[in-house]
């Protein structure tokens, strides 16, 4: 009997759970395709994003030659959306990574130590939540001259608040649990407890925070690009294109529709995949679904 019991790694079960979750699987494949399209944009598109080849047909509706139509400056919208994925995805993910890197340690420290540490971190968070992000971002962007990296930085310093609060709540709920006390009773240092027990147990709020930070960063980028301090044209970003499309929305619907769809699908797919990942990484859900 004993020999029949096959020992498999926890990672194997995590992958199995992810595969058995159909929504997560489909969205994971879609996300992978979107990332591939962004990476291999020059191979998919026929024209570059800045070539004004079709000025004669500007504002033309979707057709077989131009799947998403042509914009007001005679550029192929399909090419621009594919290239825009590069900017939006990079900013979204990089900013989410930044948010987690700032928010996770601060949230864990704040939740674990409480008292003065918690008080100071909470006051910092209050400052960040009182200031409207767009106005602060505008000021910062003007100071550091806009551009790709400053948008990531700005989205990061406004995105960490959510991650920090989520992690803090989880750590506060778990630090009174007996397994933390057992670990301390075994002689574990606070840092060991935070890294080995509290952070792995906060995996679901971390993923939720990460997934929430992505659309926030994309929208912030869109807003900043619209106000002229974000991504500088002709480099395309979806936010920029949506804002442009709104001007033509009543007569040339394709200009607003396709970039919005691209943003919405990407955000939806990221969220669904994040949910699936969260469930897959939680061993207590093993065997369910």
């Amino acid at each position, binding site marked *: 009997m*004993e020999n029949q*019991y096959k*020992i*498999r790694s*926890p990672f194997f079960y995590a992958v199995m759970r992810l595969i058995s979750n159909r929504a997560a699987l489909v969205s994971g494949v879609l996300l992978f395709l979107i990332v591939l399209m962004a990476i291999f944009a020059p191979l998919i598109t026929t024209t570059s994003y800045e070539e004004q080849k079709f000025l004669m047909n500007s504002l033309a509706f979707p057709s077989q030659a131009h799947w998403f139509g042509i914009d007001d400056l005679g550029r192929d919208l399909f090419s621009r959306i594919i290239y825009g994925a590069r900017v939006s995805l990079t900013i979204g993910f990089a900013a989410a990574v930044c948010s987690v890197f700032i928010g996770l340690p601060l949230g864990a420290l704040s939740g674990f130590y409480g008292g*003065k540490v918690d*008080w100071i971190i909470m006051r910092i968070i209050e400052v960040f939540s009182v200031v409207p992000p767009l106005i602060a971002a505008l000021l910062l962007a003007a100071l550091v001259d806009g551009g790709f990296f400053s948008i990531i930085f700005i989205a990061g310093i406004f995105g960490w608040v959510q991650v920090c609060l989520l992690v803090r709540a989880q750590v506060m709920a778990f630090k009174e*649990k*007996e*397994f933390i*006390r*057992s*670990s*301390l*009773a*075994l*002689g*574990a*240092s*606070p840092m*060991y407890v935070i890294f080995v*027990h509290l952070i*792995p*147990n906060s*995996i679901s709020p971390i993923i939720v925070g990460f997934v929430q930070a992505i659309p926030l960063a994309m929208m912030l980028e869109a807003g900043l690009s619209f106000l002229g301090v974000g991504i500088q044209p002709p480099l395309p970003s979806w936010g920029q294109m949506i804002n442009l499309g709104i001007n033509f929305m009543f007569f040339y619907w394709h200009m607003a529709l396709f970039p919005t769809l691209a943003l919405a699908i990407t955000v939806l797919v990221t969220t669904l995949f994040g949910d699936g990942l969260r469930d897959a990484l*939680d*061993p*207590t859900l*093993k065997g369910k679904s």
Partner: protein
Amino acid sequence: MNKVLELKNVSKIYSETKNITNFLSKNEDNFVAVDNVSFSLESKKVLGLVGESGSGKSTCALMAMKLLDITEGEIFVNNNNITNLNLQELKKYRKEMQIVFQDSYSSLDPMMTISKIIIEPFIIHKLHSTNERNEIAIDLLEKVGLNKTYTNRYPHELSGGERQRVSIARALALKPSILVADEPTSALDVCVKAQVINLLQDLQDEMGLSILFISHELNVLRSLADNITVMYRGRVVEEAPTEQIFANPIHPYTKSLLDAIPKLDPSLRKRRTFIDDNYIQSNIPIFNLNDVKFVSKDHSDIGFVEVDNNHFVEAKVT
């Protein structure tokens, strides 16, 4: 007798200084959870600590393990004062004493497999190589009546009794000499409870453990403990060898605890009467100073007296 764990005049007071904005106002709300408690655990013996919910039993256990700050008093492990040691200095004493908690589910990390949980002590203390750790983990599992098929499972896949065995295996991994068992059987059904108690008894014989067994069930302690300490409202009210407590309870609270044990004989069944604090306060035993050996005194007329050989009780002395 050799005392392995001793609490001397230990108190725990929770004071309500909410946060920095409140520090200007001086109205502190103090709650005394443990009030001037002293007891000691002798080598290779089982000391039962009994009392109602909120009487400070678990607080005492956590303070003895240095998992809670101590407001007043001192704690000795093998006659070394550990009260004011920092985390680093404390680490070598951690090997000597371990704790098992009541809630077996929350005492195991839900994200870890059983083998990871059991080898955690070795990781923390940097003992043994990876292979040796896994072998020792299987040995420990077998020692507590499980086998190696459990190594890759998660805590939620085990029953309450199995989880409690895993907790015990982890606590014994470092071969401690002192085990604090904080109501380890309260959440288990009668059958499993008996198994876990037998397991603790076997392990005590085998490893020469000294156990501080906290419970609110006197019948569990009767089969296990050598001595019993009764706590009531954060104070020790009676202390005696087990049979002495059952044969001759003196303090009204101890009497009521014994009265609460369900009777097997149907003809002795009766509706239980519960006594309140007023009754206990007004029925504190009174002794003449000439009859008893006076041990300690802290309030005006209430002290801790030795009424019989090793039988101590909180009483009024005239």
